[in-house]
């Protein structure tokens, strides 16, 4: 079976996994700070960021993109109501990454070497 190396930068662990493994199946076993809740792509808890090798991960599905967008939207709304313009601008920058460098650990499969970290 083809293998790939996935590195969790926050805990300094590199794991060799069978191709197709979902990030969450590994992150929870190495003690990564990537959080999780529903494991079904609904809640947005397991957002993480791709530091290297985004092209070696499965492409985000439409529901995954929707969950990521909703998560950012919620934070955005909070900051807008608090009139926190600085954070708002930082958020807009990060929002542009949604679906590219920001992914859901419960949805993303590993197809080649990559480095990831909690958001």
């Amino acid at each position, binding site marked *: 079976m083809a293998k790939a190396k996935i590195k969790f930068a926050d805990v300094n662990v590199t*794991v*060799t996994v069978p191709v197709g493994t979902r990030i969450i199946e590994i992150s929870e076993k190495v003690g990564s*700070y990537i*959080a999780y809740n529903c494991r079904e792509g609904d809640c947005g808890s397991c957002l993480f960021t791709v530091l290297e090798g985004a092209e070696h991960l499965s492409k985000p599905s439409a529901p995954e993109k929707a969950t990521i967008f909703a998560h950012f939207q919620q934070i955005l709304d909070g900051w807008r109501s608090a009139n926190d313009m600085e954070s708002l601008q930082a958020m807009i920058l990060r929002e542009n990454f949604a679906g590219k460098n920001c992914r859901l650990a419960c949805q993303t499969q590993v197809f080649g070497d990559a480095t990831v970290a909690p958001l």
Partner: protein
Amino acid sequence: MNGQHMKNEAIAVTNKVHWIGALDPTMRTFDVILKTPNGTTYNAYLVRGSEGVAVIDTVKAERADQFFTRLEAVARYHEITAIVLNHLEPDHSGALPELMRRAPQAKLYISDAAQLMLKALLNNNDIDYIPVTTNDSISLGDCTLRFLNTPYLHWPDTQCTYLVEEGVLFSGDVFGCHYCDELLFNDRVGDFRFSFEYYYNHIMRPFKAYVLSALELIEPLPIQLIAPTHGPILRDHPQHYVQHYRELSTPHLHLERDRDTKSMIIFYISSYGNTMHMAEAIRDGAAEVGGFRISLYDLEGGEVEPFIDLVEEADAILLGSPTINGDAVKPVWDLLSSFSKINVKGKVAGAFGSYGWTGEAVRMIDDRLRGLKMRVPLSGLRIKLIPSADELQDCHRFGQDIGNFLIGKPRAREIDMSQL
């Protein structure tokens, strides 16, 4: 007091607000986990404005008769313009379908997060509702209902609703308790502190961080009265209960001078001293890393509750158990089964133990810790019978590795998934 004496009257709470809830004095066990010696109340309220009537929360389906009788005493169904559900748990949404049938013109207001739950709870996809969040409000003419998004108190959907003109906070389960007295108000029902504390400890305690976030929204409000969904209505010194929630939710160690120093706790239990020796070597290894507090406790010398208080404040928890009859021992499971009473998610954790034949305990503890979403950086350390000098070195290194992980300097490792 017995609810039957009360003749199902609506009770005036303020000029604009009536209590139209239900008494359940015979209930003894709530939600499987909660006990109550005198039952509970399901508090629902009716707000009458110059241009509209709102019903805030309903009651458990089995007590709906009381609710509708009280509602009918102060309003007609066609007058109802708004129904607000602060929390969708069945003890508050039970009478909703019937209320919507009787008042079809009323608009239903729920939190954003309540939307998916509403469909799953009522098994009806055709319900019209308006999702609301912090700073949204609705007008009843001379009354304004403003919403506060206060999630995870104690479900994702929970919110509070504030009646601006009278300073009334309809708080949902927050500030509630399972206590039943038809005199209803906190200055009339006698001493209910035991119930208030018990309710907080069993319902709100795992969500302390969310309580603190909610208090940021609640504390600035000029509150005259708190109207929760269970137990006494808090009209006498309502701010006292808000302050109490802040005290109960603030981490104790954060009040101390050394507030940013992390804590590691090593719990163990040992039949022949082998697991204890492992615990001591792990402690010494962790101490070598330094920069955080370390405490070592023998589970045999204490009770679960104070240990849970310690776990709640700690950043890393290690658990040592021998294997007896293929399992971790009961005091370890007793402690672990209480972890869900507090928030342990994200804390660093690990397991270790000496064994005689097969040594299943450590892996079982590891699985439980991971199942609780604790961060377990290393697979548990198992040693057959009496630890040798080399094996005590392994324990020492285990302590060092966990210590370095705790302070954010984890040792680089390369592993195969099959080793996890």
